[in-house]
């Protein structure tokens, strides 16, 4: 009994002494985040605590903790994952007119379930020495063209980036066309999918394939790499933002949601405000080569060199609805 009481007093004391803090479940493994979060603590005095793991693992943990939530904010790198967390009932509405007014109209989710922080585009790269710019594919649909048999590199369908890409195709073209597309792409693979986006670009540089699909910021990472091979790989490929004459290039969001039942909502909102401030948005662009999401933000020189592009905002909020279907289509065509 005495022991229990002492423990209780001990915990109470600790909670009194504890400084303001915000606790994150984050899927983002970038070193830049460490710098940015340290800056936040320095500026506001709010401590940031963090557990990093995959989106699905974190969702499992949040679901299991519904009765006693441990974290305040959930950071993910996939709009569909954020939507799934929201559908699972572990997130609460953000409801901050200040925050939503920073975004372009119609960009954030309709119900304020989460807040976009950065954006990435899924682009096509081609080997400049083997593929002429005029012949390079201009749309995602072109990737399924039999002329590319044995020449295309793309990562595994376990990646959320590919699941969301196929989900966006289901959303705009329907299931039948999406299936044909996935089959076509699978037939064109130069090797069974392996490694991350960056390995695909390196594969093109090494001649294993002539085309690859990658997220835009990986090109920035390769360009800024301290490994000469990476920089050379980046130099050897040309970049295409697909579907410019149609619905636009598939983009995905890295964003955050406030976890239901948190005691630190104020601090969580403060962090979201900080992350979507013009200064930090520019910093993200510089450090991670992701695109900032707020209005009137100038792109980094490195990003400007890729050219202006039209993003597909239309399908962005339908990704979660089609994700499961997308996975099944991948299985159907045997795209591992």
């Amino acid at each position, binding site marked *: 009994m005495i022991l229990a009481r002492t*423990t209780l007093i001990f915990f109470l004391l600790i909670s009194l002494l504890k400084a303001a803090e915000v606790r994150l479940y984050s899927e983002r493994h970038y070193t830049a985040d460490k710098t940015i979060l340290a800056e936040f603590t320095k500026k506001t005095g709010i401590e940031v605590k963090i*557990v990093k793991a995959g989106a699905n693992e974190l969702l*499992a943990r949040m679901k299991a903790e519904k009765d006693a939530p441990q974290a305040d904010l959930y950071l993910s790198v996939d709009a569909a994952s954020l939507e799934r967390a929201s559908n699972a009932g572990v997130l609460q509405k953000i409801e901050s007119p200040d925050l939503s007014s920073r975004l372009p109209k119609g960009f954030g989710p309709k119900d304020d379930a989460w807040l976009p922080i950065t954006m990435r585009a899924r682009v096509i790269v081609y080997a400049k020495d083997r593929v002429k710019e005029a012949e390079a594919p201009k749309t995602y649909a072109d990737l399924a063209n039999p002329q590319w048999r044995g020449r295309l590199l793309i990562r595994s369908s376990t990646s959320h980036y590919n699941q969301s890409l196929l989900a966006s195709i289901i959303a705009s073209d329907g299931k039948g066309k999406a299936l044909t597309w996935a089959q076509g792409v699978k037939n064109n693979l130069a090797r*069974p999918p392996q490694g991350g986006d960056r390995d695909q670009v390196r594969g093109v540089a090494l001649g294993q394939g002539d085309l690859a699909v990658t997220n835009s910021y990986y090109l920035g990472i390769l360009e800024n790499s301290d490994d000469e091979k990476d920089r050379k790989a980046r130099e050897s490929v040309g970049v295409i933002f697909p579907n410019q004459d149609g619905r636009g290039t598939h983009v995905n969001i890295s964003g955050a949601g406030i976890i239901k039942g948190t005691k630190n909502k104020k601090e969580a909102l403060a962090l979201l405000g900080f992350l979507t401030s013009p200064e930090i948005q520019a910093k993200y662009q510089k450090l991670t080569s992701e695109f900032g999401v707020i209005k009137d933000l100038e792109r980094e020189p490195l990003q400007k060199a890729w050219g202006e592009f039209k993003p597909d905002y239309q399908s962005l909020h339908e990704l979660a609805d089609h994700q499961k279907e997308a996975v099944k289509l991948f299985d159907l065509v045997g795209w591992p």
Partner: protein
Amino acid sequence: MIHFLKQFRALRSHTGLTSAPGVIAGRLLVLILGLILLSPVIFILWGAATGSHGESWPHVKEYLLTPALKTTAILLIGVALVSLLFSLPAAWCLSNYQFWGRRLFSILLILPLAVPPYIAAYITTEARESAIPWLVEIRTNHGIDTYLKAELYHRYAWLIAIMASVLYPYIFLATRSVFAHRSRQLGQAAQLLGAGRWRRFRTIHVPLVRPAAIAGLFLVCMEVLSDYGAAKHFGFNTVTVVIFRTWFGLDELETARFLSGTILAGVLVILILERLQRGRARFGEAHSSIDNLQHTGQSGTLLCWIVCSLPIALGFAYPLVTLIQWQTEHQQNFVLSEYRSEIIRTTLLTLSVALICILISLFFLAFARFTKRRLDQTLAQAISSAGYAAPSTVMAVGVLGVASLSRTFSSENESLQSLLVSGSLIWLLFALTSRYLAVSGQVISAGFQTIPTPLEQSARILGRKPWMVFLTIHLPLLRAPLIGATILVSVDISKELPLTLLLRPFDFETLGTSTYSLVNQGHLFASATPALILIGLCAIGLIIVEFLNRKK
């Protein structure tokens, strides 16, 4: 005859534990402890057995399962064969021949255990890329289908070789002492009696080494089966990858649970079958001196060298050289203090789990030893192995479920509740204990088998109580296996990823999680620093074990 029976009963009552209340109380304690330790696994199996598998089950069965089973079988058989090939000849050479460098090799051969399989997998990236021109040539000259086949074999070969090269020490460690003692003595005796090489091999060495080899092989196969990082990085859809795809991609935890429950049950059946087939055969180990080793000639030395250095080169030297190269070429300087908190956390976490594992294993095994009942032995083994048979991430879900349940039951006690929140270190310790009990169990059980039964029978006949026998005979004789178990469990846990990643408290980075997150964001070169520290620490631990064993 009756007289003989009476004598036999008297002897039995002195050697086995027959005081019924004690046995029942002990067995009850074993069961309760087992139930607590296995609660995550039970949680998963219960969910799989009561809930129906999700609506995607037919889809999974039709499109995913068959190819995944095939891939897993190829990897399992491949890694098992290659790791036997790496471990058995080397263990044989070290325990039968005296050659220059023998002592050094006996340490080096264990060191690959210090390299986590996922790090070993990432390290091959550059080497595998260097084969691309050759593959491209095949594509231009022989067409796309030949190329795809070559590409597939190339990847299988790399993954099997690299996994076997970091996992074979499990078999090596288990079989070495058998070769060194019993098998050599009996082999020499048989040779004197005129048995030929093949006959000695078939009738003496194989049956004697089998239990140890299978115990080691079990650990190797479980590592391969539950691996996620390495297989996924190589683009192989193993059964574990499919479980995660079902859970994460198709969002059906129930189907994933059903799948892992089935695999878990399968593994347990195989274990039981092996035990039954081995029958009641037990091989006590006599202590022998290792001074009458056969000296090798020049060609023999060369052969021993090749046999011993190949696995070391692939499993330890290659990863180490690559990491050091990444470190020196791409990192400005090696700052140990930057990773101070990671080092402290890794050490404390692993040692405390190791201690808990050992205490529990000791209790289980000592109890089974005293009752001399197969039931108790099987129980002890089943409890220790079941946690190891479940894929880590699924196990983590089980632990989270148990955590949530425990909070419901303790809702009136606030201080207890605040201890039981998920993310509390307690659950991480619990999960790791429940999983790595298998390792301490295997090592200590092997240790118990080396203690000759006459020793304790004499003590019991002389009136010593079981716990006195345990303290005065077993414990001192188990010193080396205990230290061995501590370090092996610690090494295994510092390499572990999914449980630590998922269940850790806030701001809790270990060397393993730091390495992983750097690799995950594509900073291969930067990951060299924590990876090198991790491998270094594990290697030091393993070297200590080796020296302690020698002193004995």
